[in-house]
């Protein structure tokens, strides 16, 4: 069971990379908790979650080998 994580914007400053692979994560809530444990700065950071390029609003089961994108808001113009 592997999940590909893609990060955008200033989330990459927090994680130090723009993509990585997570093992044995089954839904988006447990993914978020795991990421917050590893990167505490994520706790106070807003981002939207897309699973296989579709935005999600509630906890979502993650299929094997799916791609989860975390996108923060941008305000600059």
């Amino acid at each position, binding site marked *: 069971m592997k999940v590909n994580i893609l990060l955008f914007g*200033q989330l990459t400053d927090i994680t130090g990379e723009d993509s990585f692979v997570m093992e044995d994560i089954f839904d988006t809530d447990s993914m978020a908790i795991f990421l917050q444990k590893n990167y505490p700065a994520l706790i*106070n*950071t807003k981002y939207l979650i*897309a699973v296989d*390029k579709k*935005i999600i609003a509630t906890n979502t089961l993650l299929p094997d080998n799916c791609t989860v994108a975390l*996108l*923060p808001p941008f*305000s600059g*113009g």
Partner: protein
Amino acid sequence: MKSENTTYERYQRQMILKEFGEAGQQKLSQSKVLVIGAGGLGCPALQYLAAAGVGTIGIVDDDIVAISNLHRQPLYSTFDIGFSKAATAKSHLTKLNPDIQLIAYNERLTTQNALTIIEKFDIIIDGTDNFASRYLVNDACVLLNKILVYGAVSQFEGQVAVFNYQNRNGDAAVNYRDLFPTPLKDGEILNCAEAGVLGILPGIIGTMLANETIKLITGIGKPLINTLLTYNALNNRMYEISLSANAITQSLIPNNKAAFEAMNYEWLCSSGNARFEIDIATFNQLQNLPLVKIIDVRELNEQPLPTGFDFTKIPLSQIKEQAASIKDETVILFCQSGKRSLQAAEWLFDKFGESKKIYSLKGGILNWINHSSTQ
């Protein structure tokens, strides 16, 4: 002098595209586009929309040209520093294309003027540079049922999307709050001034905004309807995600003109303590309004007790449990020094969100009593 011949010559290269043609040019000339923010995103969008022959273009910006703008806003020149962006943009664009109508709004978009300005246009481009304006523009477009072409940048990346587009299938139109339902505090995400931005990036994203707008007007191609595109200027990675309407979003958007005008977007997007704290003068004004509840969050036996206004005592230790009993629209919290009331304000905001106005008396009741005794 404008003649049919010069009009044809001006637009000939795009009119010979069979998908575009004379009909596409006609649609552009009859369209009205409002560009909010004549900055990094707004300048290139304006230049290409004016050049393409959009019949009426509105420009909203209350800022003046600064030297630090020029690396990403090449519509302006060094000679324009210190002058109004809206008026200067209009002047340059008129030289580029004197056959179109340009309207400069040299004012900041607020809840008081937004609806009047926006309702005159068909398509709105959000090229603003802060969250307060972005939520204001979004909510106004939802309220007026206007298509919103959204763009934003940060450092080396940009986002583009088309919001509030009612398609023929009757699918719910997506808006910015479907991505981020509640306003973000400006301090949470750094803006261009703090985080920096590669000058060419808003140029790329701004021209994409113009491109989406031209596609929407002429009906060619596939605009980014209900789709968020992210572009990374460093590795040229483009990533599209499909968006869907979120059930809670509609309840967060003011549903009539009066409710919109009563919104305080600056406050909703202000960061940290500034979001809740009020000074003594504001406290004294607010306490006389109807539907206001003043709560002392100190322990039950703490002194001194203020006089001159009614209040309820709910100690900080019990505020979460007793929150449901608070029915008033406006809640003002105080404690001895202003620290516990600020904590209580944050907890109550987590529970009630934007459904209540929540304030904390800065400096606490000791400061208020001292101030009152010296008046």
